[in-house]
């Protein structure tokens, strides 16, 4: 913008903010000071600048005095910058020609003496910077009207359905042969005790039949390119060796397949065939062939029972891995959690004693579709007494410092189910704190307590088979302190259920890298703001929902899933995205095309390519640029600068700030 020094007309507006500012800062003195600064056409103060009359005051000056810069000395820009930018826009002044000067949060509220002096310094700096402010254009780019949902657990399912019901195309990608996630493994759900399968299978079916959802199971996202509104995603589809279009899900192949393997779905408590669907209600109801156990694949050609018996000829060993590329405007990551393997804590005896099991294993034992048909038995024996140990690997700096949030409640649920299924069974809860914070949780706690559950407050040190009394012979003994009595306790039981921590997926790091997200210290993915942006992330257009963000129960997970859907919908329904105007820009004359900017940028915004005169120069993809400035600092020739935070602007601030004595 060709604008000579004397064209610059700055208006300075000092806000009293009632007495919040005026009580400490001499606003009259400050206004007078501002008036004397170069290029300042007018300086005024007013009780409440953000109020209607205050805004009108500024608008009037812009229009009548032809101001082309505005400095508002009031509260934090994080508070009212949007307000005053709108004021400028209304008066046909480019919003980026506003500078805010924070004389409340960072001056009047934190100082007594020297507040006015500091305010002067800040104002002079704002004025100095304003002088160099440039009008910036916010660009808009169209948005691809489709959403990718990664992960087919209850979070992914709910998000996919909600977006699709909004009439938008959804791609749902699931790594396993079927959707359903952890929830479909559960028996009943707290606190309402409705059957997990009964409430989730209809949702799974709805996904399958929804015209706007393209379901890709047994598939993984391998690459993500592009930016908010315009992602290009590559998906690897693993060979199923069964043609989804032909298979009717009759199940004859599984019946006839002679080769067995441990069932992942049943936590290894049961078995499945080499060609299998993880569970009867699988969606899609199309088996996969597990190459690790299929003898046809291992010893090429031997067996082939499935081939012979499939009437539709759906079995197809010629299938190979396929790469699919899709374009979406938004991405919802719902990859869930892993259950910690408690064998790390050897003293609790998991894997040493068959009757020490994890919560998930117990869910399978309880489930009618489980390996025992819903009978709680280990080696055919029904336990008469059960110990449930909370906080295994949670709230423990040796493993995970956080609380896993769901264990207290499902532990109560377990107690109830045991009482239901085993006449006169004795159940002990070993807890540290009962955390029943949710809706209906406390009632459930009360109910469980009334059902003859024994609560022992104390973290057990050991599960041992060393009997110190006749009663302990042949039992597992839980050793702990009853912290309410201050007495060591030994509790003999027939079965021990461990409640292991929910932890970040083993591959959370790769997922974070893939979608350009950050992880919090505990390994879970990081939301943009803990309170106000719970599902948004540092990467615009990518949202995280469910346990990928941290341990959650089903209601919270679903709530987040729907929030994610809303975010995705509001993004693509806008049809276009405004791109940050304060982005990096390259002065081609200075650029040597060294590529330092390419290396340092986390968002792949800069790219060195030949320009019109076939000289290698860097250029910034403004859609990708977040305006963090890393490249500008890294640039050896100073060819790159950040709009709205230029070298000139900031040096001018420094200069001005130093001018006023402390």
């Amino acid at each position, binding site marked *: 913008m060709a604008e000579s020094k004397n064209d610059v007309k700055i208006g300075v507006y000092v806000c009293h903010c009632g007495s919040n500012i005026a009580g400490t800062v001499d606003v009259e003195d400050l206004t007078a000071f501002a008036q004397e600064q170069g290029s300042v056409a007018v300086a005024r103060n007013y009780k409440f600048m953000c109020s209607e009359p205050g805004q009108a005051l500024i608008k009037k000056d812009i229009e009548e005095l032809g101001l082309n810069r505005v400095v508002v000395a009031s509260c934090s820009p994080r508070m009212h910058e949007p307000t005053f930018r709108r004021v400028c826009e209304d008066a046909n002044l480019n919003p980026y020609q506003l500078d805010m000067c924070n004389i409340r949060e960072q001056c009047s509220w934190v100082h007594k003496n020297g507040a006015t002096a500091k305010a002067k310094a800040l104002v002079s700096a704002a004025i100095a910077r304003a002088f160099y402010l440039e009008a910036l254009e916010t660009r808009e780019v169209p948005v691809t009207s489709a959403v990718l949902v990664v992960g087919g657990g209850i979070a992914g399912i709910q998000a996919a359905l909600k977006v699709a019901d909004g009439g938008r195309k959804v791609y749902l990608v699931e790594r396993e042969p079927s959707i359903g996630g952890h929830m479909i493994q559960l028996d009943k759900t707290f606190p309402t005790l409705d059957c997990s399968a009964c409430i989730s299978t209809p949702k799974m079916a709805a996904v399958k039949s929804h015209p706007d959802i393209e379901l890709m199971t047994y598939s993984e996202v391998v690459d993500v390119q592009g930016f908010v509104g315009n992602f290009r995603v590559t998906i690897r589809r693993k060979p199923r060796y069964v043609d989804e279009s032909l298979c009717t899900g009759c199940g004859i192949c599984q019946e006839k397949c002679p080769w067995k393997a441990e069932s992942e779905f049943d936590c290894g408590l049961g078995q499945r065939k080499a060609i299998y669907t993880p569970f009867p209600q699988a969606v899609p109801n199309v088996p996969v062939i597990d190459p690790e156990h299929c003898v046809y694949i291992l010893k090429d050609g031997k067996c082939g029972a499935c081939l012979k018996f499939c009437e539709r000829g759906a079995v197809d060993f010629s299938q190979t891995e396929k790469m699919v590329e899709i374009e979406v405007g938004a991405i919802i990551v719902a990859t869930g959690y892993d259950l910690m393997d408690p064998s790390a804590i050897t003293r609790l005896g998991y894997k040493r004693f068959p009757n020490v099991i994890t919560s998930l294993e117990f869910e399978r034992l309880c489930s009618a579709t489980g390996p025992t048909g819903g009978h709680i038995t280990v080696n055919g024996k029904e336990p008469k007494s059960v110990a449930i140990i909370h906080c295994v690997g949670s709230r423990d700096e040796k493993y995970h410092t956080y609380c896993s949030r769901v264990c207290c409640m499902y532990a109560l649920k377990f107690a109830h189910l045991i009482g239901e299924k085993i006449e006169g069974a004795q159940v002990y809860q070993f807890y540290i704190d009962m955390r029943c914070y949710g809706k209906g949780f406390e009632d459930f706690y009360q109910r469980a307590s009334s059902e003859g559950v024994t609560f022992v407050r104390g973290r057990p040190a050991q599960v*041992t088979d060393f009997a110190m009394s006749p009663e302990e012979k042949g039992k597992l003994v839980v050793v702990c302190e009853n912290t309410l009595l201050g007495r060591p306790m030994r509790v003999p039981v027939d079965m021990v259920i461990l409640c292991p921590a929910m932890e970040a997926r083993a591959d959370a790091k790769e997922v974070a890298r893939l979608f350009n997200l950050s992880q919090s210290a505990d390994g879970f993915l990081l939301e943009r703001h803990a309170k106000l942006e719970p599902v948004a992330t540092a990467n615009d257009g990518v949202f995280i929902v469910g346990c990928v963000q941290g341990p959650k129960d089903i209601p919270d997970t679903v709530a987040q899933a729907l929030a994610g859907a809303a975010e995705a919908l509001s993004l693509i329904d806008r049809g276009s995205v405004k791109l940050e105007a304060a982005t990096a820009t390259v002065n081609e004359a200075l650029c040597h095309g060294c590529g330092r900017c390419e290396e340092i940028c986390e968002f792949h915004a800069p790219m060195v390519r030949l320009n019109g005169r076939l000289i290698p120069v860097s250029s910034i993809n403004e859609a990708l640029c977040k305006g963090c400035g890393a490249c500008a600092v890294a640039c050896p020739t100073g060819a790159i600068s950040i709009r709205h935070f230029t070298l000139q602007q900031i040096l001018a601030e420094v200069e001005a700030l130093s001018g006023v004595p402390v």
Partner: protein
Amino acid sequence: MSYLYYPGCSGTGTGRECEESIQAVMRTLGVKWTELEDWNCCGAAVATGTSYLLSLALPARNLALSEKVGSDLVTGCSRCYLNLIRAQHYIQHNANLKENVNAVLAEAGIQYSGTAQLRHLLDVIINDVGLDTVAEKVTRPLDGLQVAAYYGCCQGMWTYAQFDSTEDPTCFDRLLAALGAEVVYYPLKQACCGGTLSMSKRSVGASLIGDLLLAAIAAEADCIVTACPLCMFNLNSFQNEAGRAKGTKFNIPVLFVTQLIGLAFGLPPKTLGLQRNIVPPEPLYRKIAAGTAVSSAEAVASGLK
């Protein structure tokens, strides 16, 4: 390689048989070491009860002495090892502590820099000498001998953290297996023996010891093997008291690990100080002799029987 050896106070007294067997076995294994010159008591389990600083400075003096020589410092006593490694660890992680400790050491005209290398006897036998070498030296495999491997507590928590698992160490089992012995499942293998409580608070000490002995008997072990002179002393000396506490009579041999290794190597019991064991170990000899095809002549010659 050659080592510095720190025998610890029990070596000349209550733990004499441990010391004798350690020397005999290490000689057989061809391990070269010299005794740390002018070593002092590590403070045992008692110094902490008097002064935090002393409980670190006493062991630190020995570490400092070893630094002068520069070779690895080896000890066969878990309590000594615990105190030494604890001092090393604390001083390394707390500059202020290091300053104070060195101020105390200055009185003895010495300074601790932190370069000392500390090793446990088992660590040396298993990881430096190696189980293969140990197995080669076995002339009288302990076939059929059922052994309760008693790791001990402070070992479990400190020693094994250095070269094995803290919560579930197995090096002992591997070592004894190399001798041909059958290591029984011993649920209390890391339970504390009560340390000095056996003397300072008998009623408690005796009951702790009683549990350890009961567990070993329940596991049908012919003997208990320990690598700590204090455990050795407790489990041997107080079987009567423990018996009274538990309403039974105990008479189960308790051997120091190198005593059992020595037997497997065919060393004469006397050189292993076995005659000093308070609970007579003779029943084991018969079992070993029976379990292996040795002519009675040999047996006599080597003093078995």
